[in-house]
């Protein structure tokens, strides 16, 4: 009798373990779908595009001839657009984040703004393109320029910067704020000397994540009328003659890496597909570089920060 019931128990356990093993296999398979696809995609791109990456590729303009075509105007354009985006999005986003988190009165208006900011982060990027087209191109007559592109992407990533800024400064414990207030600090002094510096690691991470999102955006830039074929560079910001700094590049037409890629992919000749893959490798490389920088900066800023 007793041995029989023990047998039943063993059977139960065996079944339970079988189910568990089944689920584990299912889980691993699900995971593999994602990983294998990603690896295959990257590997394919690297195999096709890798060999094309050379000094010449970086220093040549696009060309009708696939072998002569390069990404000079594209990566310079990406860099300049990113520069404008950073310059606009960082101060606006951090200031808004600080205001919302520290100063705004907690009432229904603040709640409404908070919900809207969170939702803005999820709005399809092409909508921002339409907004920019109406606002920067038609209303402000800024044209299809580096400035317009930079501002468009700045608006696109602003919600991300605002949300991460808020999260970063919310993470500064109240004990530290109270320590500052107890010494006779004003609210601004507390924010300036404590909350902001201690939250800087998190804020920078958010900024860089935002920029690495912006660097790959295509749709809104096509919407504002970015050109796909640019065989010249914008004016250099640094000039050899007085006043040595020029802002003419801001009003220059531009292209960026993803648009260049898109342009090449849409051509019928197979040689251009290889060029697109190579540009993709550069774009992925740039994104990884930016993310690496984010991790490094976060580490640097958080090194001394313990509560």
């Amino acid at each position, binding site marked *: 009798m007793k041995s029989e019931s023990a047998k039943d128990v063993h059977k139960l356990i065996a079944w339970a373990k079988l189910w568990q093993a089944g689920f584990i296999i299912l889980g691993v398979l699900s995971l593999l779908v994602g990983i294998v696809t990603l690896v295959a995609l990257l590997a394919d791109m690297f195999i096709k595009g890798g060999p094309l990456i050379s000094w010449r590729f970086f220093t040549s303009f696009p060309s009708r001839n696939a072998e002569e075509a390069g990404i000079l105007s594209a990566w310079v354009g990406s860099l300049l657009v990113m520069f404008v985006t950073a310059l606009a999005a960082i101060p606006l986003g951090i200031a808004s984040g600080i205001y919302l988190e520290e100063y705004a009165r907690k009432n229904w208006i603040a709640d409404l703004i908070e919900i809207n900011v969170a939702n803005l982060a999820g709005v399809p990027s092409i909508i921002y393109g339409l907004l920019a087209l109406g606002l920067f191109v038609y209303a402000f007559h800024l044209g299809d320029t580096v400035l317009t592109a930079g501002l468009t992407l700045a608006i696109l990533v602003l919600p991300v910067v605002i949300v991460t800024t808020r999260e970063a400064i919310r993470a500064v414990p109240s*004990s530290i704020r109270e320590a500052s207030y*107890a010494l006779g600090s004003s609210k601004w002094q507390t924010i300036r000397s404590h909350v902001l510096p*201690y939250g800087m690691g998190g804020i920078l991470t958010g900024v860089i994540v935002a920029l690495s999102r912006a660097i790959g955006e295509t749709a809104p830039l096509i919407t504002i009328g970015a050109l796909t074929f640019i065989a010249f560079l914008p004016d250099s910001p640094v000039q050899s003659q007085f006043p040595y700094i020029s802002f003419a590049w801001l009003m220059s037409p531009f292209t960026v890496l993803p648009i260049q890629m898109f342009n090449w992919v849409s051509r019928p000749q197979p040689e251009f597909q290889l060029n697109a893959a190579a540009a993709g490798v550069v774009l992925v490389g740039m994104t990884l570089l930016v993310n690496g920088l984010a991790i490094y900066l976060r580490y640097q800023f958080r090194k001394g920060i313990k509560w």
Partner: protein
Amino acid sequence: MVGKNPENISALQTDQTKALVRNLDFFYGDNHALKDINMPVYANKVTALIGPSGCGKTTLLRCFNRMHDLYPGNRYKGEILLGEDQKQSNILSKQVDPIEVRMNIGMVFQKPNPFPKSIYENIAYGLKIRGHSRSFIDDKVEYSLRNAALWDEVKDRLQDLAVNLSGGQQQRLCIARAMATDPEIILFDEPTSALDPIATLSIEQLILELKDQVTVLIVTHNMQQAVRVSNYTAFMYLGRLIEFDTTAKIFAKPAVKETADYVSGKFG
């Protein structure tokens, strides 16, 4: 209730009053946390606030530097008069800026909370926001660290991060930080509850030495600590001040039954 008329305590009349709490009520929103508190705080003495958890002792302490103003929905009623008899001003008045109050009344918290900056910067911060010169700050940092019995331990590493100090050292640093700005009163909110017995002893020693320079108000959970460091003790219960007297009297022959029950360990 003796607490109602502290002026009548004959034994206390030689000590000068630094602050006077008069008819103080305090509300966290609808929660009536302090009820009609009346008590003196004597200059250059240590006054302990004791009582069971939730009795309002920390709430009362945080009224002294208007810490409650940092959070919405808090309300004071009544007065805390600060200063010599002639020029007493109510620090709870709406006309008084809480920042001005905190410029004169320092605070040390339950858990050591040094800024994640260097040891030097921790002390210098309060002086910087008061606009002192660099050389003055340098001198004052050394003086304050000596005063807090920390100088010898940290003099060679003033630029090191304060958070790498031990818990006891961090708390002494926080005391030095609060004392560096020469406050009139320093508030301690259970300053040793996060520390080991040896660190506790050194903090208590420090508090005893500080009272020559400053008036001390300390909240403590630990009745032995109140006996060791304080001259006066206020026993609070359920938001009321039950009894205020010299520490010796409160612990030897308290006038009120609840006080006697609490100090003898019958509840709390």
